[in-house]
């Protein structure tokens, strides 16, 4: 099976039903996409398929055929997506484990809506759990990043 991940083509030989999560983590050693629940309940595994956020734990590898897969490793070329910068500025992460997924959900939100309201942020982010409790900082960081996403016109490396 041929897949395009973060702009690069990968040839893999795995069961077609293997979720992208495990393909990325075990076969390609791209471990930025995290395993939190395996059932679409926590958002830690969030990636983009053709720019839309999906849960990699529920998306079989075959569903990505012919589509652009973007993971946290490909969110920006130089680790400088406005959200990544805002995350550092607000010192968002605690343990950090949920943050790849948070960033990928937030990036998809800002792509559609660079100036989301509180409730729009809540709606887009409610599927992403953070046991450490970084929600208020995530919210603040998303708000401060929105204007820059607009200016940059989105810089996803897909």
């Amino acid at each position, binding site marked *: 099976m041929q897949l395009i991940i973060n702009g690069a083509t990968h040839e893999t030989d*795995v*069961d077609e039903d*293997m*979720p992208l999560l*495990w393909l990325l*983590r*075990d*076969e*390609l*050693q*791209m*471990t*930025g*996409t*995290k*395993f*939190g*629940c*395996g*059932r679409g*309940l*926590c958002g*830690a595994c969030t990636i983009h398929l053709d720019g839309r956020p999906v849960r990699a734990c529920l998306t079989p590898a075959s569903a990505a055929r012919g589509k652009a897969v973007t*993971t*946290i*490793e490909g969110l920006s070329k130089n*680790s400088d997506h406005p*959200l*990544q910068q805002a*995350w*550092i500025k607000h*010192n*968002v*992460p*605690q*343990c*950090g*484990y*949920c*943050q*790849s997924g948070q*960033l990928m959900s937030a990036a998809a939100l800002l792509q559609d809506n660079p100036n989301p309201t509180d409730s729009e*942020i*809540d*709606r887009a*982010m*409610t*599927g*992403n*759990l*953070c*046991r*450490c*409790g*970084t*929600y*208020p*900082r*995530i*919210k603040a960081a998303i708000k401060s990043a929105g204007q820059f996403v607009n200016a940059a016109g989105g810089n996803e490396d897909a």
Partner: protein
Amino acid sequence: MPDSSKQIRNVSRRSFLKLTGLAAGGLVLGSALPGWQRPWASPTGGNSELNLFISIAPDDTVSIICHRSEMGQGIRTGLPQVVADELEADWQKVQVVQGLGDKRYGSQNTDGSRSIRRFYDTMRRMGASARTMLENAAAQQWQVPAGECKATSHRVVHTPTGRSFRFGELAAPAASQPVPGDKDLQLKGSDDFRYIGKPVNTVDTPAMVTGAADFGQDVSIDNMLIASIERAPVLGSSIKKLDDSAARKVRGVVAIERLDGGAEPPLFHPLSGVAVLATNTWTALKARRKLQIDWSDSDHLGHNSDAYLEKMQQRVREPGKTITDHGDVQKALASASRDHEAVYTVPYLAHATMEPPSATAMTTDSSCEIWACVQDPQSVQQHVGNALGLEPEQVRVNVTLLGGGFGRKSKPDFVIEAALLSRKMKRPVKVVWSREDDIRHDYYHAASAEYYRAGLDSDGRVTGWLQRAAFPSIGGTFSAGVDHPAGFELDLGFADLPFAVDNHRSETQQAEYHARIGWLRSVANIQNAFGRCSFADELAHAAGKPADRFLLELIGPDRLVDPSQGDYKYGNYGEPLEKFPLDTGRLKEVLRRTAARADLTLRGDQQSGNGEGWGIAVHRSFLSYVGIATRVRVQDNRLEIMEMHAVADVGLAVNPDRVKSQMEGSMIFGMSLALLGEIRMEDGAVSNSNFHDYQLLRMHQSPPLEVELVDSQEAPAGVGEPGVPPVAPSIANAVFAATGKRYRELPLKKHLSIG
């Protein structure tokens, strides 16, 4: 193509450094190199070791060992920041290196909110010692008195002439200087602090926002197998019959192995289970579902958590075992003009760290190497060593980042599983716990019932206070026959009553264990503060006084309390009371500030049960004082938390931003347990399985949070845990203010829908 930099390989340090660019000059913090791969900067490769924690490279890079585990509390920043300050290092040139498990570091048990308070002084001395060695080395080079040489901002300057050396230039000569004695160390004055008490960038953040930060679940080793384990659903049962024929047929399955367990007390032993070993996680998980296992009976088969809590509630109403007894409670209660009693319950809780436990091991006949997300690598050395018949020193433990810990990852059962399976397979094995494994096989926070009774005089002052606790002790996990709460659990917000009441008595009641009981962030303070702070609020209403005024009276005059009496010796979180007193003055100050953030006169519509209200709670734990003020709205039986404030006196805050983030996290952790958290057991087995039925607070339920730190120069106290205990009672108190209904049973979702 696999990214080879993420594979652990046997490379020499030199080529490793080349591979990763670690030795390059002008090193930046939070390099993308995973924490568990970072080599300890030993004297090889041109680095000079000044002491156990500090080495300096010719290019000026200062490597500082962090020997404690990072799980979101920022310790990989906090401790090195203290070292760097005393060392006069430039933070931009500091590289944090994760220490292996090694008893030379002293305790590495990252638990009990004690990393800073236990190591603050040590880290200052380490920094000061290395600084002195650099200054002495410069003096020798210049042939001038050491007193004329002063380290400042990564250089040593000869003050009379202004000439200077970079730290890197002095590293080698400094390393051969004699180590100064403690009395020759000059510690900095707090006015000269450059990093201590200042917000400093968290070293791991850049890696965390690019996916480069590596956790236990992310470890990958050449030739490694992945194991997924089906464990006995009921404690104490073992495999009776196994049919693994279908599982074996799944492509990619390499082996199926039994793990024998079931012995009690449970200790840190792996549970009985059947491991499916495969070349990838998906195959292991999939094949595991095809296992057919009959489990043997167990004494705990009849355990039902609802019935158990019911029984505990009855028991706590009966006289129990006396722990402390001051004055004459019976008489005080008998002669009180008003008498009030209540029983509070908290269910079993799970840690649910965002990263489920995971460990990787490579075991040979004479050694074992571990890569894992563990809170206590020395305990891993000891317990893995025991399981394999090796000395602790033969077990090398690399600590990864922890995707949350909260106490779960100080229990090394999951690491022993990996070590045993690697021995059987003669190759590296990574054990991956699924979320279901995590929820069903945790070391649970104990289910509890607590009874409180108090007498009030005609002025509404408390004259007698009786309290009784029943919950299965953590002690039962470690020794047979423990069936009452233990002294160390009564230290946590129960027998350490800070109230000026002449007559008070603390008792315990019997509570047998039926599950592995462990410590969860703030431990028994959870139920003890819920009971104590809810009950005090009930008494305030009974006395017809505002909660803050009533509490100030109840706490009484400023004084230092020593809760010890007779056989009950107060533990004070392992610290002497002289250094960390139980100071009612500090508690009252936090109370005043907390109350100032609330409107305690706000009363919702008690008739309809609709409206808004504020609640407060203050509690000392882990030597810190934290108050929480919460505003809630209850409408049509739907509870919404509108805002929450924390006021915290944690002594000196080494890194104020991380202290604040811990308080924010504690409020959200506290809300999860107050509103949603409940593990239920039926027929001995946990009936929850994942985040749909063990719910955690989500963003839309998370209100605006504010944190106020009391400016303090007192010794630094605990930060990671003390924010949790007052959250639940502050919410319950606010709900009462809003509705006139008192909920004494957590979680509140049993009674209200959660908005």
